[in-house]
């Protein structure tokens, strides 16, 4: 019987390893990895260029005007035009979304996830909501124009704009809230049912507290999206020109009156031919982006803080 000597053994091993690794560097693999990495870097560079470009255009206006820019009403004179009315409009629209879309959206999600089970109605609602989430925003604007502005007779008002935006974000609220509810494990519910809780008690005392961080994150992102939405507001008649806000008008008059919002004013200023409006647009974009990015950062932090694996 031939015995294999130690040096022979290690030589075989080296040959086998070299054969498996084929002794070459994996150039194709490295190039591919680099190319894939590059696609990400390109996207990030675009984001960086966008932010620095807008920032550099906006800084002169923001530093020269300061708070006056935030408070002043719109004007055709770029020297005194500001985003005061737009900020007010955006805040009111966001309140509309919070009051209307959130309760309806979250309860609809509770119905789908906790109550309905797998019946035909729930499946229909589910499919319907997924399709609604894919409808272009401008089509919601048409809905607002046909229903709220014309048929109901609310006119081109803050009220119409708020209702339209609330309808636009409703499907997204339902989808994100349903996802958060689905992430709560069955055992939590079973434990609550086991000690005699009714279904609504299970939901309010067990499922909702655990799902709350997820629901909140989704809602915060949805609000950020609503804040930047422009097309539907233009369809229901957000003012792209100059209008006057009377100092003594009451709350209801304000809701029924003409309005504008931050993204709308960005649109109308970006269409102005004068060069001064370019800088003004950038300044308005910075105001818009500060809100949206701060809200997004908060949502990401919230998610990381409360992210739990069951």
């Amino acid at each position, binding site marked *: 019987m031939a015995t294999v000597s130690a040096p022979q053994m290690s030589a075989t091993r080296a040959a086998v390893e070299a054969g498996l690794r084929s002794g070459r560097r994996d150039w*194709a693999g490295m190039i*591919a*990895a680099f*190319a894939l*990495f590059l*696609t*990400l870097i*390109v*996207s*990030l560079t675009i*984001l960086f*260029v*966008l932010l620095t*470009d*807008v920032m550099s255009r906006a800084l002169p206006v923001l530093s020269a005007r300061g708070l006056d820019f935030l408070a002043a009403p719109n004007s055709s004179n770029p020297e005194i035009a500001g985003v005061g009315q737009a900020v007010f409009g955006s805040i009111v629209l966001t309140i509309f979304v919070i009051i209307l879309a959130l309760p309806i959206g979250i*309860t*609809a999600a509770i*119905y*789908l996830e906790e*109550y*309905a089970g797998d019946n035909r109605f729930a499946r*229909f*609602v589910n499919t*319907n*909501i997924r*399709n*609604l989430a894919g*409808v*272009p925003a*401008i*089509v*919601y*604007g*048409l*809905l607002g124009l*046909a*229903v709220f502005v014309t048929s109901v007779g609310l006119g081109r008002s803050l009220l119409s704009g708020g209702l339209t935006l609330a*309808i636009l974000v*409703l*499907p997204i609220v339902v989808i994100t809230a349903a996802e958060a509810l689905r992430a709560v494990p069955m055992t939590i519910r079973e434990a609550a049912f086991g000690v*005699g809780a*009714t*279904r*609504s008690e299970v939901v309010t005392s067990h499922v909702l507290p655990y799902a709350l961080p997820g629901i909140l994150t989704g809602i915060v992102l949805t609000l950020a999206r609503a804040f*930047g939405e*422009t*097309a539907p507001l*233009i*369809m229901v008649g957000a003012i792209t020109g100059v209008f006057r806000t009377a100092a003594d008008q009451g709350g209801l008059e304000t809701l029924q009156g003409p309005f504008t919002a931050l*993204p709308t004013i*960005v*649109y109308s200023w*970006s*269409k102005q031919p004068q060069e001064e409006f370019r800088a003004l*647009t*950038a300044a308005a*974009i910075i105001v818009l*982006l500060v809100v949206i990015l701060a809200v*997004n950062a908060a949502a*990401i932090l919230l998610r990381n803080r409360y992210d739990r694996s069951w």
Partner: protein
Amino acid sequence: MTAVPHPGPALRIEDLRIGPRRRFRETFIRVAITISATASIVISALIVVSLIGNAFAFVREVDPAQLVTEGWFPRRDMFSIPTILAGTLVISAVGMLIAAPLGIGAAIYLSEYASTRVRKVLKPILEILAAIPSVVLGYFAITVISPGVVNTIHPGVPIFNMAAAGIAVGILITPLIASVAEDALHAVPSALREASYGLGARRLATSMRVVVPAAVSGIVAALILGFSRAIGETMIVAIAAGATGGSLFTINPFEGGITMTAAMTALSIGSDQVAVGTLAFPSLFFVGLLLFAITLVLNLISEAFVRRVRERY
């Protein structure tokens, strides 16, 4: 040994029954949330009714010859549907040319190559890109993309052109495509990857020949979804594609053009002046119905592809 006396009256089955107040609360909550769930159906019905009702008014009045004129000029009763369809397709195609490689490349990198640490940094940045409102990208298109990028490729283009709008639309839909495609790649079981490595395949071969083919339905779904979003995108086009109010038929991306969505915003902004009784106002809803139908079909196809991935694994 003596029996321990029972501490109190025995627990009866009646004690476990829910009382009338709790029962009322249950019923009330069930009814209330069922009504909430119905809201979405009401919204869909309102969309369909308001679009079809007004679009029908347009179809009844319009002369078919007006739909195939040489351009879209609603104030002059020229409602050329091919013009706005061509503009929409050109801009979406440019957008897809940018977003498909960027989005899918980023998805493959994040899912197959990136370490957990790299993912943790890069993913939120993609999410921030996704959060930028389209009106901001429209401004970016006329201040940077059009003079900086498009003008370099094709010197002497007008500042408002479809190529710049298309590139901005591409930037807008890249994060969407990346996120949907990454979900699909993530859903491929790691057993498939391990089997491939076990046979001696490297990472590139494993990603391209095993994981990507296994997730191809999801990647197609991501592309269709991105395309659908590009078609419905409004503000970028309204700002950067030029042609406010009307345009001649063109498929040259280096010219200004008009899309379905831009035609709608232009009509809406001017609609204070549009006298009731002209066709311009109902034409808004006809175009809206067309857009709604196209995106709905695309979304349904995309959803069917996603379902295929889910069923397989």
